[in-house]
């Protein structure tokens, strides 16, 4: 019964989505306004640009930077968080810094970063990584600090310590919440890719969109926006699949907690 309603909900979601796309398609069909070209024209431009003409020149560099920056950021956040979380005094000492950095919109750092580290690809990757660190770090620190005491006491009673404890108890125990942080970081990473490319780049999807806007190639601009939306959707779906796989052995409690 519950299964049935969940299928019904999913169908309903698809239906609403389809209705909105159809409304856009029909509503824009005869549009002569250059700023709102018909969806039909946008999809044509989408096909011309992204299947697959501009994929190697613009999409691949963007996705590469996204992947590298994101993974570095998540690894650094989780690693540092594991070390900070188990040291209460250190944790209290650095919490305000983490809170501050997390509250600072990472896009605000872009102009400074351009001056300091330049506009090269590694600068962008570094900025994406820096932006991704904070949500992961905060979640990891909290998760490790709030690990079930019985887990750590059992480990202590059976003399499981050091690296073995870190890898077999602490990391998997904190994993659901680390992944929650990693998911938040994913949205941040996509924002950072697009914005860094808009500000200082000669290639990439963000650069494509801003360049199309500046040259009044508005259907191209729309096609880029559409692509960015699809990428966001796809990487989120991918993330959920990976998350489900990683938490399978945690059982029903582990999966629902994140």
């Amino acid at each position, binding site marked *: 019964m519950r299964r049935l309603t969940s299928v019904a909900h999913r169908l309903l979601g698809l239906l609403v989505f389809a209705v909105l796309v159809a409304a856009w398609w029909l509503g824009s069909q005869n549009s002569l306004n250059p700023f709102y070209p018909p969806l039909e024209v946008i999809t044509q431009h989408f096909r011309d640009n992204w299947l697959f003409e501009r994929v190697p020149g613009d999409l691949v560099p963007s996705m590469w930077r996204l992947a590298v920056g994101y993974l570095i950021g998540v690894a650094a956040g989780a690693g540092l968080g594991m070390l900070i979380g188990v040291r209460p005094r250190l944790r209290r000492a650095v919490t305000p810094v983490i809170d501050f950095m997390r509250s600072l919109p990472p896009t605000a750092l872009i102009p400074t970063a351009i001056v300091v580290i330049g506009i090269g690809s590694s600068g962008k990757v570094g900025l994406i990584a820096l932006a991704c660190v904070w949500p992961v770090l905060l979640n990891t620190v909290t998760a490790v600090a709030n690990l*079930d005491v*019985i*887990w750590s*006491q*059992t480990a*202590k*009673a*059976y*003399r*499981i*310590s050091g690296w*073995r404890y870190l890898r*077999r*108890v602490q990391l*998997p*125990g904190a*994993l659901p919440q680390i992944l929650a942080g990693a998911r938040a970081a994913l949205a941040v990473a996509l924002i950072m890719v697009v914005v860094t490319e808009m500000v200082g780049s000669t290639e990439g999807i963000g650069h494509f969109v801003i360049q199309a806007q500046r040259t009044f190639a508005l259907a191209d601009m729309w096609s880029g926006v559409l692509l960015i939306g699809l990428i966001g959707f796809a990487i989120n779906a991918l993330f959920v699949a990976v998350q489900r796989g990683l938490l399978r*052995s*945690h*059982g*029903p*409690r*582990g999966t629902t907690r994140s």
Partner: protein
Amino acid sequence: MLEVQSLGKTYLGSTPHEAIRDISCSVTEGEFVALVGPSGCGKTTLLRCLSGLDSPTTGEVRVDGARVIEPVASMALVFQEYGRSLYPWLTVEQNMRLPLEAAGVSRSEIRERCDRALTDVGLQGMNDRHPWQLSGGMQQRVAIARAIAYRPRILLMDEPFASVDAQTREDLEDLMLDIRSRYDMTIVFVTHDIEESIYLSDRVIVLSQPPTTVAKVFPVNLPRERDQLGTKSLPEFIELRTAVHRAIRRDEDVTAGALAKA
């Protein structure tokens, strides 16, 4: 082999709380000792001090003459919170292996010990299940299997059967007697259940209300072979049960009287 000398434990804080005043006792090799007492009498605190997880404020715990200041390899602890003491992301066997790997036991011996321990607790073939796929009673069996695969000389158990149903509890009690006869272990068993304490042990130590001291000690002179119906209906058993009950009750009365006066 396990000696407790004038152990006391006071929790410091804004209002210091004296949990244990003065406990001295010793457990000989191969003995099964049950600690009983009213709830909140510091049984768990005492066991934590015995295991080395917690340190006493005064006095000391010694195993074979060596002072216990942190968990030692010769002791294993079975927690009351059996469900939470197993790691859900590990399988039954991985849960059992982890302490053995940390202790540097060889691969082949680990496998042997795990299989034997699982068989002894009646869970053969459950190696690859996860704890969350098992019932509460089975989870506690896994926790016991993990402890016996560790081959401690002393097994400490903290109200291990407090949160399982009555039938499962009887099964687990008999399992403990069975394990006791198979493995050469000294067992210290904490419980608030008087019948359980007598049924399982060679000696019952009754603890007082906090600040806790040893109220009374009862040797259990029942035959080694025990069974749920037979043993529990023996006149000696019933007599002992009344005596232990009275010892606990008297202590409660004394405390109540003192409170009334104050």
